[in-house]
């Protein structure tokens, strides 16, 4: 509770106490009026001042003005007819109490959402004459050595020079399993070192580090507004003046008609109804409920490691009908591994693998890496005369013996007859001294969660799944079949992918594209919603995407869609609920069935309920 809040609370209590005392005072009308002015002014003087300022600036339709008119009007009715001033003071009292509650609730949600994305490190430790000194991370140049102690946040991106530790990356990725790091590993700012002391060489400045970029993203997230938010803002603009005009009409027309028809005008009754109208006219519940829901949804998803760049993307996500995936790095790990070893007759498995690994030992091609990883018995010093034949393979001498490893074209060129197999992925044929040794099947491996993710997407309203890949047909088909993806487009260049996505856009309602952010920035930008996966440290992806998933788990795409659906549900509930109650109360008060107490509920009570409902969007754990 801030000072401002406490001050208001004191005023509310003081005014309430005065009202209790005044309940026992029975005196002359005008004296009572003067006495009742005391609590009224105590609790509402600032509202009156603001209302006056609004009139002065020719912007008289704010809620302060409405409250001022309603309460002054209620005093007038009291003076002229009922002699009861309780209502005027109570309306002001309830209004201020409601405002106080709203302000407290909003502050609380601001703080709790703020805490979710609070990954900002306050200091960096620099070793100086054997002592650790805390400095502002802004003042640490790239290339400095910093020390991270157990329990501290890594302030700046860098590489571990010495030390071993486990990192808690949950603030960034939502992943609860700690990640082990040791000398030579790169570490991301925002992670918490759990077990050991790390010496880190910084690679960037603080303002370019992951943590700063994410914070900037989170802070600007609210700037891109969704349709419901724009609707509410527009609605509020029309609603308040419309109700004011309605109130004026209610105060004048019916009694005038009655008077013309020769009946008693009941002017004061209608004035009272009109004032009730004014109290209901504040659009607070809507204006606070909708943006707060989106804000809570964005905060909740960031806790799950999903950064949504604006509330309009939450809205789009909830309507996703078509999902296009990049293959490598998104559905597959992007790492090749040996899937099968098929030696020729009389050749051992080990012999075949060793020959292949020897040929490929100095290559950095992903397939070569997989072969090297599969066999660790190669003595690199014995490998000589390595010759790379572009698009075919490699030949080399191992211990003086001529080896060849490559595709079928290489075998044909060497005049060796190779077996043919219909397997997904790449086949590496191996020969030794012109004799065929057999072949090895190497392919990219699927992520464990890729298939469940594709299935789950179909359950959340996605009707069409498409895979876009630069790989050749067979490998792409195999992956698509394994994952039950509807459509495959293969052998694509990045610009083809962007073109295909815009084709999908014209055929479908809402197209979501998920990629790993490498080379597909234009596609991310083309899709209605571009999701960058595993984007820690990839600047281009964070820039181009609308939604950034911090780790590389495809199930997070499903989670993002589910969160968005929950948020949109709450938004709809809040709109219907607020409009329904307000409309109902307006009708009741026009008929004279509802007095000011109900009007205050329609204003303040609905707002409180809308706020509480909105905060449900924060809870995304069990989605």
């Amino acid at each position: 509770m801030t000072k401002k809040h406490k001050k208001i609370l004191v005023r509310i209590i003081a005014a309430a106490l005065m009202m209790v005392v005044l309940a026992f005072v029975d005196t002359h009308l005008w004296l009572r009026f003067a006495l009742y002015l005391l609590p009224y002014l105590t609790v509402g003087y600032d509202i009156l001042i603001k209302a006056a300022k609004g009139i002065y600036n020719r912007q008289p339709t704010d809620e302060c003005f409405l409250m001022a008119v309603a309460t002054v009007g209620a005093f007038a009715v009291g003076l002229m007819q009922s002699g009861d001033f309780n209502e005027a003071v109570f309306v002001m009292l309830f209004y201020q109490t409601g405002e106080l509650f709203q302000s407290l609730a909003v502050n609380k949600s601001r703080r709790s959402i703020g805490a979710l994305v609070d990954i900002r490190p306050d200091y960096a430790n620099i070793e100086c004459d054997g002592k650790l000194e805390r400095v502002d991370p802004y003042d640490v140049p790239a290339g400095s050595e910093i020390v991270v102690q157990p329990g501290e946040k890594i302030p700046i991106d860098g590489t571990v020079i010495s030390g071993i530790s486990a990192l808690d990356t949950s603030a960034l990725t939502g992943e609860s399993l700690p990640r082990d790091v040791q000398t030579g590993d790169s570490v991301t700012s925002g992670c918490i070192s759990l077990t050991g002391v790390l010496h880190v060489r910084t690679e960037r400045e603080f303002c370019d580090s992951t943590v700063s970029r994410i914070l900037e993203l989170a802070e600007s997230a609210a700037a891109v507004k969704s349709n419901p938010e724009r609707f509410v803002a527009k609605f509020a603009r029309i609603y308040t003046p419309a109700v004011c005009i309605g109130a004026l009409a209610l105060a004048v027309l019916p009694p005038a008609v009655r008077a013309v028809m020769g009946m008693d005008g009941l002017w004061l009754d209608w004035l009272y109804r009109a004032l009730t109208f004014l109290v209901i006219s504040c659009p607070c519940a809507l204006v606070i409920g909708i943006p707060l829901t989106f804000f809570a949804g964005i905060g909740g998803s960031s806790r799950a490691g999903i950064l949504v760049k604006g509330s309009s993307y939450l809205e789009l996500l909830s309507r996703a009908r078509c999902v296009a995936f990049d293959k490598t790095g998104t559905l597959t790990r992007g790492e090749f591994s040996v899937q099968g070893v098929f030696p020729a007759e009389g050749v051992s498995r080990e012999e075949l693998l060793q020959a292949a690994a020897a040929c490929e030992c100095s290559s950095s091609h992903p397939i070569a890496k997989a072969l090297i990883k599969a066999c660790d018995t190669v003595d690199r010093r014995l490998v000589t005369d390595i010759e790379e034949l572009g698009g075919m393979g490699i030949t080399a001498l191992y211990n003086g013996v001529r080896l060849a490893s490559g595709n079928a074209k290489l075998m044909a060129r060497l005049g060796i007859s190779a077996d043919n197999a219909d397997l997904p992925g790449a086949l590496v044929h191996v020969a030794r001294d012109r004799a065929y040794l057999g072949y090895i099947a190497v392919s990219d491996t699927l992520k464990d969660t890729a298939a469940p993710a594709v299935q789950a997407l179909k359950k959340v309203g996605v009707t069409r799944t498409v895979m876009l890949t630069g790989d050749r047909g067979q490998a792409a088909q195999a992956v698509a079949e394994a994952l039950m993806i509807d459509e495959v487009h293969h052998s694509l260049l990045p610009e083809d992918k962007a073109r295909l996505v815009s084709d999908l856009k014209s055929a479908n309602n809402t197209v979501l594209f998920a990629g790993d952010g490498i080379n597909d920035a234009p596609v991310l930008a083309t899709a209605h919603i571009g999701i960058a996966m595993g984007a820690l440290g990839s600047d281009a992806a964070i820039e181009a995407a609308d939604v950034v998933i911090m780790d590389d788990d495809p199930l997070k795409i499903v989670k993002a869609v589910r969160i968005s659906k929950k948020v949109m549900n709450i938004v709809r509930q809040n709109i219907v609920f607020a409009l329904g109650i307000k409309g109902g109360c307006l009708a009741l008060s026009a008929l004279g069935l509802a007095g000011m107490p109900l009007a205050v509920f329609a204003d303040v009570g609905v707002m409180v309920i809308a706020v509480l409902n909105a905060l449900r969007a924060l809870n995304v754990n069990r989605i």
Partner: protein
Amino acid sequence: MKKSYKIEVDCPNCANKMERAAAATEGVLSASVSFMTLRMTVEFAEGADEKSVMAQVAKNCKKAVSDGEIIL
């Protein structure tokens, strides 16, 4: 050019009013106010001087919302 400023404002409707006042200021291409993050994001028109435009924005916002504050 886009820049973001911290603001102080009490009610969401007032935040919307500040947004409209800021957007209507000369030299401002678009403005967006988030009541939740208490931030105003202003996109300046080509060649506009940020300082003088923001001074005018602050003045207009003050007029629209008497207790609204932009922290420049």
